């Protein structure tokens, strides 16, 4: 039982990087960016391939971040320069990344048989695999939160936030909103790719199909966090997203424990997100009666 709790917590914290990435686009930039479905496995593919080739696992994660940034920039440029709607731009990059990911790995699935990962470092210190996951998760979630708190408090960070809220206003202050959108997408997909890398190292393999449904998982975490923990300030929103990711994993663990077939997980998540997203509308309808 203790193992189950710790592993659920660990998974929630690791996947919180994905939730943070989705938060940056969906909430800060006000864009539904589907690139994540491609940049998550991209991060996994880059990291696992490099580790198999003998590269230090931490460096492989940094490489994954760079890959994610590139993916974000591609979506950003397709959206801002070619004027393709953001949703479609993300879908195009996501589809293109499927081929890219196959090229990176050379095949559809690469496993990390007995290779060193960020977790085996901890395991070498007599820490169990479950705890190693949780510790790494806690560390990256904390560092990411700290970084984003700083970043969105800088001039550029404030300009990116304003771009998502009111592009006309921030253009009138002399900010190139196109650049801000590209920057935001870059940052978001870097986080998502790192999430992919960390999850892949934890699972011991990267699979070209592992990105399916990540956008919905990210959205679920963001919305659960907002509903449960509030959005009164930027720091609160950020914390809420990380906690939302943990709560999402707890919910999943509970429904699986109660006997829901794992195959129905994605259906369950999709329904959960649909309900959460429609809550404000449903509430308004209910009150107007």
């Amino acid at each position, binding site marked *: 039982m203790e193992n189950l709790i710790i592993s659920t917590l660990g998974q929630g914290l690791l996947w919180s990087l994905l939730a943070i990435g989705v938060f940056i686009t969906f909430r800060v930039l006000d864009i539904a960016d589907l690139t994540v479905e491609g940049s998550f496995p991209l991060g996994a593919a880059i990291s696992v391939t490099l580790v198999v080739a003998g590269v230090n696992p931490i460096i492989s994660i940094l490489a994954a971040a760079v890959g994610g940034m590139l993916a974000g920039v591609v979506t950003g440029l397709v959206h801002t320069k070619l004027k393709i709607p953001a949703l479609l731009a993300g879908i195009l990059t996501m589809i293109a990344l499927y081929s890219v990911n196959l090229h990176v790995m050379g095949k559809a699935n690469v496993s990390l048989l007995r290779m060193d990962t960020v977790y085996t470092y901890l395991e070498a210190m007599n820490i169990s695999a479950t705890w190693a996951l949780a510790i790494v998760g806690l560390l990256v979630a904390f560092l990411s939160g700290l970084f984003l708190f700083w970043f969105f408090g*800088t001039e550029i960070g404030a300009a990116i936030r304003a771009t998502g809220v*009111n592009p006309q206003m921030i253009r*009138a202050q002399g900010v190139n909103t196109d650049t801000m959108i590209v920057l935001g997408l870059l940052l978001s997909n870097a986080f998502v790719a790192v999430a992919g890398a960390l999850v892949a190292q934890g699972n011991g393999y990267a699979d070209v199909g592992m990105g399916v449904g990540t956008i919905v998982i990210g959205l679920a975490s963001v919305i659960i966090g907002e509903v449960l923990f509030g959005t009164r300030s930027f720091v609160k929103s950020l914390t809420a997203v990380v906690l939302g990711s943990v709560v999402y994993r707890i919910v999943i663990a509970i429904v699986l424990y109660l006997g829901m077939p794992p195959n129905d997980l994605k259906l369950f998540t999709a329904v959960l997100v649909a309900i959460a997203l429609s809550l404000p509308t449903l509430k308004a309808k209910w009150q107007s009666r």
Partner: protein
Amino acid sequence: MLEVKQIVKTFFKGTVNEKVALHGVDLRLESGDFATVIGGNGAGKSTLLNSIAGVFPIDSGSIHINDTDITKMPEYKRAAFIGRVFQDPMLGTAGNMQIEENLLLALRRGKRMGLKWAFVPKERELFRERLSLLGLGLEDRLTARMGLLSGGQRQSITLLMATMLRPELLLLDEHTAALDPKTAENVLTLTDKLVKEHNLTTLMITHNMRDALRFGNRLIMMNNGRIIFDVRGEEKKKLTVQDLLERFEVAGDTISDRMMLGT
């Protein structure tokens, strides 16, 4: 100083809906000129302002501010010279951000933004001082979200933001049209005060003929994409609403109910 030469703007070019919104407009504002712009619907007032602000490219002609050619400059770069207040009070500020966050972005208008921490204690003092000028008690609510404020409060802050760094040109696009009469009067008084205080070159569109006569040292009347009347100084002071109405009739313009209500 603003110099607009022979600017032409056509909307929906090459379609059945093609409409020439500006037929070669010439306009020169001297430094410190405060010009009010009136005209009926579709006269080209907003098109003129948006052309100067760079919201869309113009077909031909040129726009200079203090000898800098800004004709081809993108909107965000022109912001270094221009302060703007929009008709919709929601457009001038970021509703989801704090008052001080909005103000500090305005304090960096037209400057390169970097990875410097945006919040400087010294600037907070400046914000408090500026906000206290409004007399709305907002100086104690720096961290309140903009979205919590009323339209008039937001429009007043937008005005502060547009003039936070002295702009070479201030563009006001019917900035009191969406406010109730009393609030509109307060915002207009504030506008006049700020323009005088900083000696700002200003272009203010209004649908209210009385306001057009009361404020500024110059009055411009537009009709059908052209400037048809341009008076300044003493001559403007003598002008009455009746004079303006006659001008409109000569131009064959229909006076909208909105303008009549504003007399």
